[in-house]
């Protein structure tokens, strides 16, 4: 019985575990800030539902409802971005051509310019949510000043209520890898 008791006590002690694991930790070495979320107002990407879309908008993007994740553009919207580097980047844009406008104006074409150079022309043959994504030559981009992205839609839709000239619905745009 004594042996059994000793075995039980030893087992109980072992079951409690013996490796010392600290309770608290100091902050670790900080990794390169260029990879992290943007510290300043201007970054490489903008979401219309994000914290600072106004900082990225240069012109022709209409004000949206508070908290809304999308905004109407006009005929020639312009955005600006600050890039940490220029290699291996793709331009991405999530946008929509609403069905109600498509019925009236039909297919539209959106021309996209990066720092004044035509990146592509997007032909929208049907309404709905769309994603455009295309690599951008590094030579077109710069890190010492904002990169300007402009779009131009060939046919605007005139809102019957106020006569506003509307292009497309923009959700997110910017540079990804």
């Amino acid at each position: 019985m004594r042996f059994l008791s000793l075995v039980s006590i030893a087992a109980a002690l072992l079951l409690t575990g013996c490796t010392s694991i600290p309770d608290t930790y100091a902050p670790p070495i900080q990794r390169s800030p260029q990879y992290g979320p943007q510290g300043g107002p201007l970054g490489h990407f903008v979401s219309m539902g994000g914290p600072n879309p106004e900082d990225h908008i240069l012109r022709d993007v209409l004000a949206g409802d508070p908290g809304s994740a999308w905004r109407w553009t006009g005929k020639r919207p312009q955005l600006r971005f600050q890039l940490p580097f220029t290699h291996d980047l793709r331009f991405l844009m999530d946008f929509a051509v609403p069905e109600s406008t498509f019925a009236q104006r039909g297919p539209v074409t959106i021309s996209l310019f990066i720092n004044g150079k035509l990146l592509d022309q997007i032909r929208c043959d049907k309404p709905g949510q769309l994603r455009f994504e295309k690599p951008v030559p590094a030579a077109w981009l710069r890190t010492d000043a904002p990169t300007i992205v402009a779009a131009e839609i060939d046919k605007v839709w005139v809102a019957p209520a106020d006569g506003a000239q509307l292009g497309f619905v923009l959700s997110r745009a910017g540079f990804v890898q």
Partner: protein
Amino acid sequence: MPQAVYILFGAAFTVAVSMALGKLLLDRLGLRFYRQEGLVFAFLAGAPGLSVLVFLLASVKLARKGVFLALGLAVLAAFWRLRRRDPAESFPALPKLWRNLFAVVFAAFTLLYFFNAMAPEVSADGSNYHLGLVARYLRERGFPRITTNMYANLSQGLEMLFMFAFTFGRHSAAALVHFAFLLTLPLAMLSYARRFGFPAAGVLGALLAYACPVIGVDGASAYIDVALAAVLFAVFYLLEIWDRQRLPALLVLVGLLAGFAYAVKYTAFLAVPYSLGFVAWRLRRAKQPVLRPLAVVAACAAVMMIPWLAKNALVLNNPVSPFLNRLFANPYVHVSFEEEYVQYMRHYGELPSRWLIPYQLFIRGEALCGLLGPVFLLAPVALLALRRQAGRRLLAAGLIFGLPYCTNIGTRFLIPAVPFVGLAMGLAVAAWQKLAVALALLHAALSLPWVMSKYCGVWAWRLRTVPLLQAFRVEPEEAYLIRKLPGYVIARLVEEKVPPRAKVFSFGQLPEAYTTREILVSYQGAFNNVLMGILWTPLIPQHQPTLRFSFRFPPEHAQKIRVLQTAKGRDLWSVSELHVFRGREELPRSPLWRLRAWPKPTDVQFAFDNNPVTRWRSWQSISPGMFVEVDLGRAELIDSVHLDCPPEVAQIRLRLETQEASGRWRTLAEAPQAAELPPPLGLRRAAVQELRAQGVDYLVVLDSDFGAADYRKNAALWGLALLGQRGPARLYELSGP
């Protein structure tokens, strides 16, 4: 000297030392058996002893050839001096028909199994971890502290014998040790049946088990299941003898073997309650004292179990790692992994319906890794054995030792039950001699490799040939391994290109028994899970920190703040970064800060490293009380806290609290505002740099691995340099910034 000689020496020396130790123990206990069963019990009683001795040597870093040789020779010398010389009595001779039947089938399958066991080891688990770990222990002269391979956490009682044999004859010697248990199993079954008066049933039962395809392929590989079946059967057998003889010394052996069953495989812990229950039941029925015999069984079992429990408790804070991680919280195996693993083992991913289990189990053998053979479809006939006491006890033991099948539906998990079911089938039909002989011959015929190929699945785990030339290395080992083991060339590529002591990350298992480099397999440990998460983050937008939760509140002096999770659900919670702000200025992360989190406190720094590819994760389903906490070192004026998270947070509910001087936590802000964040740039390079920071410099990617095409196409973007390619695998070096 030819390699075959080393192989045979390694295996024979291990078996001989085991038998010598066992014989010494049996003599010491004053136990006498019939000659035939004496050999069986000597081996099975000695194996636990040798296993414990090797464990102790490995614990003190003395696992080396010279030490093992000296130990073995000392045991043999002691045996030679101390053995009892009076000859043991033999069983009455078997009837001629049954003797001839047993001899023919047993001999044929023994040859098949022997040559397969002696051929180069190509089994999946054998070459991946059973022998991979053995080889590593030998390289390091004993147990290194391994926290990144869950297989190293399992009990490895049989691997200790493999290690002894491996020292002399390497992989095949270890497989031959398992083959020795395979030989022992039918002999033990036959002895049991002869002792208790139903030899014909014993022959049939033994042949049903021995020729069973999954038992054959398992027993001829460096696996452990057949050894486990032999040990469990010995526990049953010894208890039956004890029930007749009531020799207290038998209970010592029962306890040691029941404990050794656990040491061989966790699932066999049932041998201990089975033994205790049986002894208590029989003694109570006889109105005899119960406590002392139970104490003997329990104490002897504990001797065999405690080394493994203690090793895990010391190294991993969890005596039964990789299981029960909720109970024994530790940073080495995630609760979520354990739950997924257990769930997977209960269902096996490839099986669309549970109704297919019998078909796979008895005939096809593909989805459940092996087959029992079509004759076991007649297993219900074993119920006829319930008419006899022996039949009832056999079936009860088979049921108990088959219970782990509920936790893992792989065919291997039924191996411990097969001897009992086989003997019960024998008891049921042995009276009809012609039927019994026909059944044995049919089962043997259907278990021959070239017959099996007519009905089982193409990918069924089974023996396929008699590799005579390979066993004796007429065909070089290397050539055979290249042909038969797909991962072998990858392991050799790693060996060739990766420097010693470097770490290699792999999404899937590699045959680690054929490389000396450390492989971190994605699922085999918590650290590895984290590395996989880092590598996946650039590829999966839902894993990227694109959602910011913002708590805003009137400026307040606070020293300790925490974000508390209050919901219950199935989601995991994760935080990529936690920022503390005063106005528009973020408080710089001071060395005076102290960070805490629950669960997974050891990963809390990932939420404060300014790295979007790392994150603190709960690694278990969310429940109220989980938190991430910061002690700012002194009271600071703050007015907002931001959490950057991946957008997979539907069930999460968060609250920000601060600790008052009294120690009570008070709510600072509830219902944070959520806003979208831009997808970060440079994730691929950041992931590779983080792996390097974690000490991993090489990456193996198979074409079938998630993201393989991206690693290939964007190697420069990741910072990967291709070192070599073999078949579907690529080995990359992670390059500097």
